[in-house]
């Protein structure tokens, strides 16, 4: 059979989705050609706000990569725009002069941002928020300019505003109505949303009509109809979208607001279809993603000759993709004469729920603050369920699972990635999946906004039955199903004393791995510091060798310099050693010490012996250094003896093992020259007191430390640092930095626990016990023949000469 030529205009989510559906039904039936104006493969436009927020690249939100087109033998013309359609000869022409004939044509040209025709709208610095290029331009702007104005307080505008805020700009949002997102929310929810976003730093200018964009060549501000003005270096228009119908209209295809289609996505012209945001079905042109996927399925069936009842329109639901804000709405939003209302408003916790009832049936819902009922309500709305059903379902715990059980296989669970219930259930069965994360990895469901996570969990529950555990815990590694807390409880309860015993008794599925063995070694030592025999073979190379391995297999040596203070004698020793062993480089570290790089393994013990200085622990999951500023002894601003305090802390806590590396600093005034704000424990001296900050991080996950307490005396400070460190040692997961740990527990809870004097005493007793067995590892190594042989000596076999 000769293949039919199928041409798609528009390489966006709706069109490509339709092609995917076609390939599923009849992979060999068509010769497929796709034209796309943007020079990228199909990406997830709903996630543009993530690109704008920075840190996410186009490839991260790509739905179909370049290989997908190749693998499916699709001729793909990226960066090429179709300029005309000849419906008589059945051909399309492009801006590159190409003419392509078709048997079937899909128009999926999407929509354009609606640009208000304001005076000055053509100035530089006026943008839309619609594609990758817009994002890139805005990111560039944020580097050079400070003030942004977003016109439009709807879904798109707020996401753009949040992104610009993240890019470090000051953001004004201008909205014509008296509350935000008026198309999706009622006034109560809109006002709650506004309060929340104001807390995040957004500024709102409501009930203002923009009259003019001011500036010469480049925008400098906005002028409103009441004569007032604001300044702005960047103006983003996010007032709405309109279906992109120009191409269809010129080709003589009937359009209204969108391209008119029937229930089978057919336009009025034979062999021409329209799908997605450019299409208008029963008077509605949809601008959200879920309907597009449903349309794609119907269209694919129609093209492949599969009988279907056709597209019946969609009930919409909305979720705002702004961090820290939970908003949901579906169906009817505002009360009128024919509706009754079920409402709950909790001013204290900032949650709000409204369910609209029409003739006893659920017709719409608005949720703020707590949106976990969203999926359920949305399903009830689509089914036209009675309000009693919802109220009863709130009583029984099983209802969510029943709800997904009753869904049909075609129903979309993940709106962002268009994953149906059927495909998730199949993946669970075929691949034996048991966790939400596995489903995510396998099907993409819940990978984007995460809104459907609970539905995926429910699907797992109803597919696996009793085998599924809802409150999924995090196993410490793939060798076991036990979590950190369970392993520690078992070790304590059963009195386990070494790694092999833990793995045998707790039925490890293998001989351990590079994740669990170092973790178990730490936990066992933390639980019983006095009796536990550290297993150096279970430690990472750096901790086993007490030196940092480099990419070429050489090591680096960092001797300790308490508080970053050194002497001419020590410096001389370091210089002599560096010369004698011809080290590759001498470098000053970020922790105020000196690093000797490029040292051969066999030379390590010799260098340590000649230096005769303690190890700086630059390799350890433990206390590294205490960085200090000059402080009151020399600095004219210094209020406290920061060096003295730094040395005191470093001497007390050196050699301590902790779940991850640990850095401290002491500054003598709020200028913070020792960078106490980004340390695991940062101390800032102020007039007559010490401030103690915790959970800071200057690394991968930059985090500003939280103020924990303020103390009058150094003794109180040192005691609290001891308690804090022991609390962290006992409750953090292995390899969890204090920054993550503080965030997980919450600073308030930590403060509460450490406000208990008795607890502070007990933590100090236990940390003193752990510190009592600390030995300098370099001294230990150079005095132990077995260690020297096992760890530091190579076997050299001379080549025989014949």
């Amino acid at each position, binding site marked *: 059979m000769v293949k039919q030529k199928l041409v798609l205009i528009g390489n966006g989510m709706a069109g490509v989705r339709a092609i995917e559906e076609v390939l599923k039904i009849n992979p060999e039936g068509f010769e497929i050609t796709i034209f796309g104006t943007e020079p990228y493969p199909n990406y997830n436009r709903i996630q543009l706000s993530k690109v704008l927020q920075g840190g996410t690249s186009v490839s991260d939100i790509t739905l179909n990569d370049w290989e997908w087109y190749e693998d499916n033998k699709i001729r793909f013309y990226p960066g090429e725009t179709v300029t005309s359609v000849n419906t008589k000869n059945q051909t399309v022409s492009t801006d590159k002069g190409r003419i392509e004939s078709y048997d079937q044509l899909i128009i999926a040209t999407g929509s354009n941002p609606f640009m208000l025709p304001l005076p000055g709208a053509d100035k530089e610095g006026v943008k839309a928020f619609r594609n990758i290029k817009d994002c890139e331009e805005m990111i560039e702007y944020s580097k050079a300019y400070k003030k942004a104005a977003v016109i439009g307080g709807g879904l798109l505008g707020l996401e753009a505003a949040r992104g610009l805020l993240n890019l470090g700009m000051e953001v004004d949002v201008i909205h014509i109505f008296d509350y935000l997102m008026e198309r999706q929310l009622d006034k109560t929810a809109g006002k709650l949303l506004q309060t929340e976003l104001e807390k995040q730093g957004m500024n709102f200018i409501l009930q203002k009509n923009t009259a003019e964009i001011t500036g010469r060549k480049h925008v400098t501000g906005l002028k409103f109809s009441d004569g007032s003005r604001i300044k702005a270096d960047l103006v983003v228009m996010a007032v709405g979208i309109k279906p992109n119908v120009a191409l269809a209209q010129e080709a003589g295809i009937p359009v209204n607001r969108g391209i008119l289609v029937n229930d089978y996505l057919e336009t009025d012209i034979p062999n021409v279809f329209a799908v997605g945001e450019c299409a208008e079905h029963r008077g509605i042109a949809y601008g959200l993603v879920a309907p597009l996927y449903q349309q794609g399925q119907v269209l694919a069936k129609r093209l492949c000759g599969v009988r279907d009842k056709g597209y019946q329109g969609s009930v919409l639901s909305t979720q705002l993709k702004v961090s820290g804000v939970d908003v949901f709405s579906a169906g009817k939003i505002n009360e009128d004469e024919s509706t009754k209302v079920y409402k709950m408003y909790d001013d204290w916790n900032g949650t709000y729920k409204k369910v609209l009832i029409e003739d006893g049936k659920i017709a719409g819902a608005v949720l703020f603050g707590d949106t976990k009922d969203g999926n359920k309500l949305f399903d009830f709305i689509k089914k036209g369920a009675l309000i009693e059903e919802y109220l009863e379902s709130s009583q029984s715990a099983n209802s969510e699972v029943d709800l997904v059980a009753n869904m049909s296989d075609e129903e979309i669970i993940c709106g962002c990635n268009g994953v149906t219930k059927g495909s998730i259930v199949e993946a669970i069965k075929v691949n034996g999946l048991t966790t939400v994360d596995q489903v995510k990895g396998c099907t993409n469901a819940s990978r984007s906004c995460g809104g459907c996570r609970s539905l995926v969990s429910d699907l797992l529950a109803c597919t696996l039955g009793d085998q599924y555990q809802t409150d999924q815990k995090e196993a410490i590694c793939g060798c076991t199903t036990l979590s950190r807390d369970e392993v520690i409880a078992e070790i304590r309860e059963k009195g386990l004393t070494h790694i092999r015993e833990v793995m045998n008794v707790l039925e490890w599925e*293998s*001989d351990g791995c590079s994740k669990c063995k170092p973790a178990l070694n730490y936990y066992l030592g933390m639980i019983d510091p006095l009796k536990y025999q550290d297993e150096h*073979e279970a430690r*990472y*190379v750096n901790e086993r060798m007490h030196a940092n391995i480099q*990419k070429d297999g050489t090591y680096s040596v960092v001797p300790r310099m308490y508080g970053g203070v050194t002497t001419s004698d020590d410096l001389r020793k370091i210089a002599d050693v560096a010369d004698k062993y011809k080290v590759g480089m001498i470098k000053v570290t970020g922790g105020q010490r000196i690093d000797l790089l490029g040292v051969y393994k066999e030379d390590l013990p010799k260098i340590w012996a000649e230096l005769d200085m303690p190890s700086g622990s630059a390799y350890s999951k433990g206390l590294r250094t205490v960085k200090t500023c000059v402080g009151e002894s020399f600095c004219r601003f210094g209020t406290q003896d920061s060096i003295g305090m730094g040395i005191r802390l470093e001497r007390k806590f050196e050699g301590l093992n902790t779940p991850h590396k640990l850095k401290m600093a002491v500054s003598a005034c709020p200028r913070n020259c020792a960078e106490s704000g980004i340390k695991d424990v940062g101390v800032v001296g102020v007039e007559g007191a010490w401030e103690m900050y915790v959970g800071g991080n200057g690394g991968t996950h930059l985090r500003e430390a939280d103020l924990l307490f303020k103390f009058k005396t150094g003794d109180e400070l040192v005691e609290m640092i001891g308690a804090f460190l022991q609390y962290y040692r006992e409750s953090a997961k292995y390899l969890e930095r204090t920054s993550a740990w503080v965030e997980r527990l919450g600073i308030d809870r930590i403060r509460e626990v450490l406000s208990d004097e008795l607890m502070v005493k007990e933590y100090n007793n236990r940390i003193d016990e752990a510190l009592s067995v600390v030995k300098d590892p370099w001294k230990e190594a150079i005095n132990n023949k077995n260690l020297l042989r096992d*760890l530091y000596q*190579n*076997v050299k076999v001379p080549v025989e000469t014949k």
Partner: protein
Amino acid sequence: MEKTLRSVFIGEVSELPQKLGKTVIVGNKEIAVFKTENGDIRAIENRCPHKGGVLAEGILSGEYVFCPMHDWKISVKDGKVQAPDVGCVQTFPVEVKDGQVYVLIKE
């Protein structure tokens, strides 16, 4: 010149550290020799196929070593890199006679 296996004495069994690797340098060749938990002795090329990491310094679990550079998991028995990474390292036969360890090397 014909290729033969040369038997190279590298030390006593008791001198090899348990559950760890030992770097053995034969001419210009580096070999990682492991004594596993159950007492087997295995010899593989001391070079991870990924970025050349020194496998002798990795964490040994059962019959797998985890490269100290980027945590690739490699069998010390057959030299195969474990999924999701791919590749393999050269292995060398080992003989133990009267508590003495020999590695057989082609020359």
